[in-house]
């Protein structure tokens, strides 16, 4: 590849072909790549510098406080983690169940294709719409309560469910058919084949997809605002019906404070914490994927 875009050697005796466009296009493509990386790096560096001196153990373990020097992130951090765990518990079985049904049981008819199309569409619905749905369904109709852990988990869970279903479907589809044939050929039932052959083989892919979807869920703010989650709480949730805040909500709240200490230092510390949690989640997904690739 590199050899083709080099300047043509001089005096070869065969004449020369111009490489101007090759070189120009190569630089253009490089620039396009750098735009993303450089801006992300700049953002991270900027936030990290702002967070210096603010992000410390006290920040992570204290409740919020009107004084920026005593403000802490603890309830929002724990709130986010609690919502995340509950989302995983809710969406994993439902998402895998739906994927198994669509891939292994459903006939390839109009209804299946209709459902499939809608799942793909649902994955693209703006999160604020899910917030409205959560407000009407979970807070209003089912009475989970305004801004509770349960209402937040169900609302955001619904938001990432289509992503999990699609990821799980892809993982299940990637299981070679020869494996299913081998199992059916041994006189296994459909359930035995799914349980012993399909799911174990698809599980790393399903896990990766689920964890990445959770990474998306942790940054969601709009649906939480819609179900009236408080932007600031001072204690950690002690039941499913406790009011809960989450990291992005708390950050959003701090950003609206008049003091510059909040707008720069405290917000930056919160953003760095959020990003570290997010990157940790994504790293786990990558580790699972790599371990799986080594095994096969």
């Amino acid at each position, binding site marked *: 590849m590199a050899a083709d875009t080099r300047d043509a050697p001089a005096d070869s005796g065969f004449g020369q072909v111009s490489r101007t466009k090759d070189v120009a296009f190569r630089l253009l493509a490089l620039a396009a790549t750098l735009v993303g990386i450089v801006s992300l790096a700049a953002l991270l560096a900027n936030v990290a510098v702002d967070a210096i001196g603010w992000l410390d153990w006290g920040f992570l373990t204290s409740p919020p406080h009107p004084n920026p020097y005593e403000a802490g992130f603890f309830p929002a951090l724990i709130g986010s983690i609690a919502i995340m765990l509950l989302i995983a518990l809710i969406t994993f079985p439902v998402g895998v169940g739906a994927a198994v049904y669509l891939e292994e049981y459903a006939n390839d008819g109009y209804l299946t294709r209709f459902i499939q199309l809608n799942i793909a569409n649902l994955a693209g619905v703006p999160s604020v719409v899910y917030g409205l749905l959560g407000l009407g369904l979970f807070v209003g109709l089912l009475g989970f309560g305004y801004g509770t852990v349960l209402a937040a988990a169900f609302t955001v869970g619904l938001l990432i469910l289509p992503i999990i279903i699609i990821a799980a479907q892809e993982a299940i589809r990637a299981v070679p058919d*020869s494996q299913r044939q*081998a*199992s059916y*050929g*041994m006189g296994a*039932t459909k359930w*035995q084949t799914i349980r*012993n*052959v399909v799911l174990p083989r698809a599980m790393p892919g399903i896990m990766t997809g689920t964890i990445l979807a959770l990474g998306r869920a942790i940054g969601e703010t709009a649906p939480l605002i819609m179900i009236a989650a408080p932007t600031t709480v001072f204690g950690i949730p002690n039941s499913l019906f406790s009011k809960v805040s989450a990291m992005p909500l708390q950050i959003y709240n701090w950003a609206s404070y008049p003091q510059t200490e909040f707008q720069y230092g405290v917000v930056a510390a919160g953003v760095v914490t959020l990003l570290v949690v997010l990157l940790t989640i994504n790293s786990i997904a990558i580790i699972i994927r790599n371990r799986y690739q080594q095994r*096969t």
Partner: protein
Amino acid sequence: MTNEQMTSSETESTTDQPAPTPGTDSLADRGDTEGEPTTDRTILEARDLSVYYGEERALNDVDIEIPEKQVTAIIGPSGCGKSTFLRCINRMNDLVDSARVDGDLLFDGKNVYDDDVDPVALRRKIGMVFQTPNPFPKSIRDNVAYGLKVQGKDDNVDEKVRTALERAALLEEVEDQLDSSGLELSGGQQQRLCIARAIAPDPDVILMDEPASALDPVATSKIEDLIEDLAEEYTVIIVTHNMQQAARISDKTAVFLTGGELVEFDDTDKIFENPEHDRVEDYITGKFG
């Protein structure tokens, strides 16, 4: 085919006509076995068996009687329906949405396409080995034990696993690594592992769909030796595109030609030395296919 059965089926179809002379019947193999010993018990019998994929006919009125505890080879050019026939026997074609089966296929006298036959239960009596080795990403032990596990045969699993590996001529090579992954074995070993997996639950019949086509000559010859040994205890039906292989290992040979037609079925020696049909002779001698 026994003479009694031949006579009765002839009478059904041509009531007023005298029985046609052997060799002129369109299905050809009728009568070819005259004079042969007929003591072999028939374990599988197809009667007017046709298979369609959508509109397309993949198998055309096949009649065949497969003897117990012998190796029956099915040969023929690509697309002649030989794999389709094999997959009919244990109803693996049920897994293909568009497949439709007409006619009867009797296993121990029972039509496997009767409404009261559970295909899952049927497959527990008829094991299958596929073209490409397809062990599970599990340990060698768990691979062989898979059939025992799903069929609920939970007693003496270790012993049965060892017996199956031994019969599949693999035990010596893997004895010390039963807990390592089946995927770490060579292609030929993997295929013998798949054979061990197929015989572990002790089925009556073993179907093999070109089991050596993805293997090198040494591995192939090991599989061939193994198949001949297996026929002492099991009925083996093997699809192969390799005519020398069929000639080497089988007792009976069925020749399918294009259009899903069974053209000739007879003792392997007869098929290869003196076939009744010119088309079969042309195929055997490599003039087409």
